[in-house]
């Protein structure tokens, strides 16, 4: 569906040339939800804007739905853009138009007339759950409702691709989740390919199938979300994964515990997919002569399965503790002995 080949984007600045996107190659499949994560300034925004020709690459080619976006111009580009919709962090609705009129706007652009347009607008309002708010103006809506209008507007011309530019970054956590659920629902129901950029790993975890991590213009890591969670390679990826798996206070708590428990070991277990649902701890206690104390745990759902982390303290004879750790290793569970420092 989307193919990005050797793409570079260089902005001339007073301080010299800024490489916003540096030799990026991506293939995104039909019907996939593909996430790009990075801190601000990583080039992800520039990258997504090249997918609908709002930016042109300095080098390389961008092909979306069979059209080489980086080459076409004028009416051909405008036609292509009707198949590549975009939603925005700040919604970008027309304040002078009502909800219905905002949703009708792309239909007007595409030349859809009168009754047909009205019918399509009504369908879309139902799809995003805004019944009863048709005649409200954007200023009368909450952030979540505004983004729903944005989504309805983006879907109006039945696009093949939906680009989400930090679409949930201006929303509170609860609203973020409801918008993300809506996106997953649309992806399943309409088979729409979704590309999203974000700086929140939570968004990636919740809806993406695959993820690319960007840092200073380069894609430094890419793969299915669960694989990246299980085995993050780059330091930046590890930091993003920690956003979801380890709450802020975990590090402090662990340091505190390491001071308290002088004997035994503190172990971090990582469960992926099926193993998250097996009684590993029960088996561990039955197999080994150790005391097990559960310190902290968390399970997260991703689009390709569940992912959990658990911190436990194992105490007993040194030999027994080592045996216990080996036992857990044999259970297809990731094990890391936590040490101070």
């Amino acid at each position, binding site marked *: 569906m989307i193919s990005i080949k050797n793409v570079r984007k260089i902005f001339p600045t007073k301080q010299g040339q800024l490489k916003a996107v540096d030799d990026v190659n991506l293939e995104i499949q039909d019907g996939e939800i593909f996430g790009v994560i990075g801190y601000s300034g990583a080039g992800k925004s520039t990258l997504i804007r090249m997918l*609908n020709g*709002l930016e042109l690459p300095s080098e390389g080619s961008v092909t979306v739905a069979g059209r080489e976006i980086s080459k076409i111009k004028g*009416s051909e*580009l*405008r*036609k*292509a*853009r*009707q198949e*590549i*919709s*975009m939603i*925005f962090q*700040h919604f*970008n*609705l*027309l*304040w*002078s*138009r009502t909800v219905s009129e905002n949703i009708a*706007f*792309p239909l*007007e*652009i*595409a030349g859809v007339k009168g009754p047909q347009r009205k019918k399509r607008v009504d369908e879309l309002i139902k799809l995003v759950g805004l019944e009863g708010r048709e005649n409200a*103006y*954007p*200023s009368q809506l909450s952030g979540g409702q505004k983004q729903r209008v944005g989504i309805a*507007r983006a879907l109006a*011309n039945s696009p093949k691709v939906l*680009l989400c530019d930090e679409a949930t970054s201006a929303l509170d956590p609860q609203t973020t989740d409801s918008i993300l659920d809506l996106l997953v629902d649309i992806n399943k129901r309409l088979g729409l390919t979704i590309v999203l950029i974000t700086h929140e790993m939570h968004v990636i975890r919740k809806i993406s199938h695959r993820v690319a991590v960007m840092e200073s213009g380069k894609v430094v890591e890419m793969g299915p979300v669960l694989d990246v969670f299980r085995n993050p390679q780059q330091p930046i990826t590890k930091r993003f994964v920690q956003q979801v798996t380890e709450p802020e206070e975990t590090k402090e708590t662990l340091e505190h515990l390491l001071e308290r428990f002088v004997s035994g070991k503190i172990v971090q277990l990582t469960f992926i997919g099926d193993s998250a649902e097996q009684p590993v701890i029960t088996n561990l206690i039955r197999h080994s002569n150790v005391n097990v104390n559960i310190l902290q745990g968390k399970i997260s759902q991703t689009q390709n399965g569940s992912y959990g982390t658990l911190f436990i303290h194992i105490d007993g004879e040194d030999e027994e503790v080592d045996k216990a750790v080996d036992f857990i290793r044999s259970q297809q569970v990731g094990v890391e002995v936590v040490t101070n420092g």
Partner: protein
Amino acid sequence: MDKYFPNVDWLIMWDATKQTLYMTGISVLATFVLGIILGMLLFLTGKDNLWENKPVNTVIGAVVNIFRSIPFIILIVLLIPFTTLLLGTMIGEKAALPALIVGAAPFYARMVEIGLREIDKGVIEAAKSMGASTGTIIWKVLLPESMPALISGITVTAIALVGYTAMAGAIGAGGLGNLAYNYGFQRNQNDVTLIATVIILIIVFVIQFIGDFITSKLDKR
């Protein structure tokens, strides 16, 4: 009535009022259209915009600034050859129109440009991402989204134009300004000046009221 205002001929006063309304009305309409066109061009050819073009932007900007800076009374005199060429006369309310429009349109064009600049760039980008052409963006995004600013701008301009018509009256264009000058000043009939002033004030208040009303109706922010 005649006891308090012995010199006021109400028929002449009414004629002068109609002339002032005529001059103001036509010049406001023409200024609205011309100012929006000039302001839109200034905006579109500006930096990082749809038709970014530095030379064109600089030229329009310079012309606008020059005409905006010339005092109106001098502009009328400067435009005498142009007006007589266009209309064949320098006398009467029609003859005031070219100067009124040339004086007000650049002033209004700057207000239009400021109004357009206040539109969120993201909204223009969203329209682009939907495949809108520049024409669609102008008619369906830029103009409606800036309409309250355009209306409050034309209100201010219209009030300035009422003042300009009075000045134009002083050199033979007719209207309330002309009446106040010929009768009030030249013949020292202060009651005529007073009534002419009151009528001008009423016109100004009505324009302000209408402008504010439309602006508040349009503004859904």
